[in-house]
């Protein structure tokens, strides 16, 4: 089914759209700066740490100290955290495979009833199409 195109917007509508787009772009820029500034801060902490330790200790000493300080409870938390991430990523891949497998048949059956059935246009696994990514 074809959809009619919107009528040409008036000058006031276009001006409002432009104003909103400008504000949106400014705020998005601000939030992006905050997002990456947080990452830069993490690296900054690592840099400051290495700088303060430079000349006083070696990488091997730090490694040995870390290993020496590592308690069983820390080890468990690392394994638990890492395991959780692996579990989540695995479940996500499993879900995407299931979506791909099940949606194909469902779409074909729906099309038997509704010949003009329209689609979202997402990928077969239900993810954003690469050309739609910002």
């Amino acid at each position, binding site marked *: 089914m074809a959809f009619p195109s919107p009528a040409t*917007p008036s000058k006031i509508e276009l001006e409002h759209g432009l104003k909103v787009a400008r*504000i949106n772009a400014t705020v*998005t820029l601000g939030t992006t700066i905050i997002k990456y500034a947080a990452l830069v801060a993490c690296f900054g*902490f690592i840099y400051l*740490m290495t700088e303060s330790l430079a000349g006083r200790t070696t990488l091997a000493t730090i490694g040995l100290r870390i290993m020496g300080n590592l308690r069983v409870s820390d080890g468990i938390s690392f394994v638990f955290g890492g395991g959780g991430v692996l579990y989540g990523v695995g479940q996500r891949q499993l879900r995407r495979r299931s979506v791909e497998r099940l949606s194909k048949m469902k779409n074909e059956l729906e099309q038997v009833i509704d010949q003009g059935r329209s689609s979202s*246009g997402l990928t077969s696994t239900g993810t954003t199409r690469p050309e*739609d990514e910002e």
Partner: protein
Amino acid sequence: MSSAYIAIHSAFGLMLLWVFVFYFWRDYRVDAFRDHVFSIRDRLFLFAARGGVSFDDPAYTCLRYRMNVVLRYAHRFTLTGFFVTLLHPSRFPSFDRTRWEGALKANADPDTCERLREFDTILSIAILQLMLYRSFLLYLLLRPILRFVEPREVMRSSPNVVSSVEQVEAEALEEEARRRAKDGDAVLVG
């Protein structure tokens, strides 16, 4: 415990937290939203398949089209966009909103109209929840509160929120219209 160990531990933890908040969480929220909208779309299809509304009814095709566009551009629905439209509301009803309202008015059966409006409300609530829950901090803050608050009541009592959600949706619909015009109105089927 040495200070080097604490520093490495903290830096590593902060980086993992960053990845979780800015990548995994947002990705998950968009996936959860799409799953929700797919379930709404399936219910709408079943409603039509059972004879509730014709598949050719403009109200049905319009609502399904809107759902498809929302599914496609879900990753662009952000809290920033929501607040910007909340602070700078458009005074002009969107083309697709006008078309949807017109299609509903043209539908003679009040029960069908009521059901279709219900689907529309559920879709709007889903969009609002996506925009709010995409922020992990906001999710932690709002989720417990929203367990005791009916989202429909929030939408009913706040026309500004409703119009902002509609405006965010309208922007996605306009983007889709631009792409369709560029691609020669190709309809995605399947």
